[in-house]
């Protein structure tokens, strides 16, 4: 039993524990914190697998941005008395059974497959001579995966615009908060035009 193996098992066990707490905590805020912990542990797993860039991106984006966003949402939508009501709905038992079945199914399918029969994918020639994971990822982002890279940028832009649109207040409500134009302050306009 080497140190790495023990580390792997410890991280895995802890990940499972925090994940379970994420979905069972009564306080939503604690649930969010547990999620943060789970995601960080996933980053550790990435490191153990040698995907350093992905691990860092995970920490930056997920833990750094998504969790913050989630906490914002929790704060914005918190209500008094939330903690007194159970956060788990009535479907807990059937859902547990279903999820157990899913886990069993996937686990059995994945472990029953003989992965040694798969020939490993060849190395990308564009990444010849890259030193380390980071350089390889950077190079491939701009060569092999340049299209997805650009399109993802577009998607992010769309999501940004969409989120702003969805989350802003109604037009009529916002119109009433606009200040009237200076000309309209002189009195009722002749001809009965409504100021835009």
């Amino acid at each position, binding site marked *: 039993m080497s140190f790495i193996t023990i580390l792997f098992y410890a991280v895995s066990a802890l990940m499972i524990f925090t994940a379970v707490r994420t979905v069972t905590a009564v306080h939503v805020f604690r649930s969010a914190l547990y999620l943060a912990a789970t995601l960080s542990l996933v980053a550790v797993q990435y490191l153990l697998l040698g995907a350093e860039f992905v691990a860092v991106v995970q920490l930056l984006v997920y833990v750094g941005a998504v969790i913050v966003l989630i906490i914002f949402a929790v704060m914005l939508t918190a209500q008094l008395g939330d903690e007194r009501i159970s956060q788990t709905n009535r479907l807990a038992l059937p859902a547990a059974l*279903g999820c157990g079945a899913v886990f069993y199914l996937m686990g059995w399918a994945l472990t029953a497959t003989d992965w040694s029969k798969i020939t490993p994918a060849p190395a990308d020639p564009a990444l010849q001579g890259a030193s380390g994971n980071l350089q390889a990822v950077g190079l491939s982002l701009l060569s092999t995966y340049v299209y997805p890279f650009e399109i993802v940028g577009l998607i992010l832009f769309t999501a940004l615009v969409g989120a702003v649109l969805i989350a802003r207040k109604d037009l009529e409500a916002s119109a009433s908060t606009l200040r009237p134009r200076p000309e309209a302050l002189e009195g009722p306009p002749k001809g009965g035009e409504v100021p835009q």
Partner: protein
Amino acid sequence: MHFSNPSYLVPLLPLGGFLINFLFFRKRRDVAPLLALLAVTAAFGLSLWLALGVMADPAPKLDSLDWLSVTNQVFGHFSIQVGTLLDPLSALMLVVVTGVSALVHLYSLGYMHEEEGLARFFLYLGLFTFSMLGLVLSPSLYQMYIFWELVGLCSYLLIGFYYDKPSANQASKKAFVVNRVGDLGMFFGILFLSYYLGTANFLELGPKLAGWPLFGPAWLPLGAVALLLFMGAVGKSAQFPLHVWLPDAMEGPTPVSALIHAATMVAAGVFMVARTYAVFDTALLSSVDAPFVVACVGGFTSIFAATIACTQFDIKRVLAYSTLSQLGYMVLALGVGGLGVTAGVFHLFTHACFKALLFLGSGSVIHAVHSNDLRQMGGLRKRMPVTAWTFLAGCVAIAGVPPLAGFFSKDEILAALKETGHPGLYILASVVAFFTAFYMFRLYFLAFEGEGDPHSHAHESPATMTIPLVVLALCSVAAGWASLPGNGRSFGDYIHFERGAQVQADWTRATDLAAVHPEAQGDYRAATALWATPLDGAKGLSSTASAAALSATASAAVPVAAPVPAPESRAFKLDLGVAVPATLIGLAGILLAFGVYRRRWVDPARVAAGLGPIYTLVYNKYYVDEFYRWMMDHVYYAVSGAIAWFDRHVVDGLMNGLAWAAQFLGAGLRKAQTGRVQAYALGMLAGLLILVFTAMKLLGSY
């Protein structure tokens, strides 16, 4: 379509009259009747011309097109012809129908003069004439059926002409419904005929029947077909048990009774049987004695109705039952086959003449006395001489006194009965002849003789009514002479039934086979095999042994009807052994009526009282109507009640149950629509898991 003769015009002329009257002159009492009369008279003239042409060339002329034509492997070629078939039988009917119709049109101008719906009456008359003419010219049973129903419709319209009289409405409905019962059987007969024989066209019946196998188990199909077709005649020609509509049909105006219920429509049944007689004859040869059933029905009807006619006091009822009785006579004649077919049709012809005369004469009387009741009539001969003398001519004719028409036709019927070996039926027919003479002269003496009511202002009818009477009286006298021999041009030479030569040969062969192989008669396969074996020197009947067996057992083996002799001449033969008793019977009936009703030798009321329950039974028409009412109320409505219950509770219940089940399921399934997305997602997960597990099980990888 090319027409070889203008026979198609004959029905179209009254139809044209009907259409023009219907479109333009519906309210014109002055124009419509005259136009209708003109159309029918023109049709009559054309019919006479056509009849003369047929007498010169009696071969059937068919102008038709195939309305429906199917060719397949099962039936070969099947077609329904529509068009006209002009042969001696249809030419005769054309003349009779248009002639009587024209006379009735003329008569109605006077009789119906004060009626409200005069134009409507002539509309219906024209429509009826068209329908009847279309019926007699039909080349196929299908076209005939169409016109058959049309004629029934016109009868309904005309019986119910006085639509504000509830009795008239009920009578017209009764006529139509009872007719319909017969028509149902007839239609099935037509369908089965088409199926078994592959055709329903009259000219094709003979050739198709020639191949009918006559040896073996009794081939029920032909017999069933014949009897089903006969059901149509039972309905239309008012035979027992579908006779009940004809007496009630007297609710219609008297000209209607004369035209439809005496001369033409009721004769359609007789006409149809005569047209399709080959089917009956071949059925007889295949040992299903359909003609005998026909004869029995006709014979029973004739004696049944004759007895009722003796007791009725309504002048039209007496004539109605007389019509029933004479129709029974015609059907009886048809049922004995051979010469009987000619005799039956000939009686149809003569009966049309004198029965129309009698009805129109009774109409004249009713018009004068304003009553139908014989007990309120009497002594009319002095006041209405033309009516009286013409009526007397009709009575003498129907009684069968020579040399008037009735004698010739009745004598032919009696001769046919005697020759084809039905002694019981011969005696029955003679008894009916006696009754016929008796009740007709009872009617005459009660209405026209005696003192009558001195205060009545009955007077002779106008010319439009008396002219038809005179014309018909002349016909009643002379019509019988058509059957007298006249170098091959007598009635029987034109209209007769002749068994096909092939059928005759087949019958002989069947008889021989039955003599030699009696055991095969009950065995379908053996019979068919034997029948299919051609006659030749090596097999079958020509060996000496079988020939000996043949001669020994031929007559005893199979009881079939004697073959029809082919007479040298089909003209009227004066057989004194038949003519003298018939005439004496007629005179005896007249004498009895004279004695009872003119000279009061016996008081008829005391006789009736003396007969007691028998008299009541006969007077009430043997309670047939009451029996039918009872059947309807207790049997028919019970059955229909049960069926209605079934329809309401089982059929509708099933439908309602399905609806209820759908609602129930829906309400149950509604509970699954919680509106909560997570529940739906769980459902999807569950479905997915089931699918995956099932697939894994099926693919055997689990």
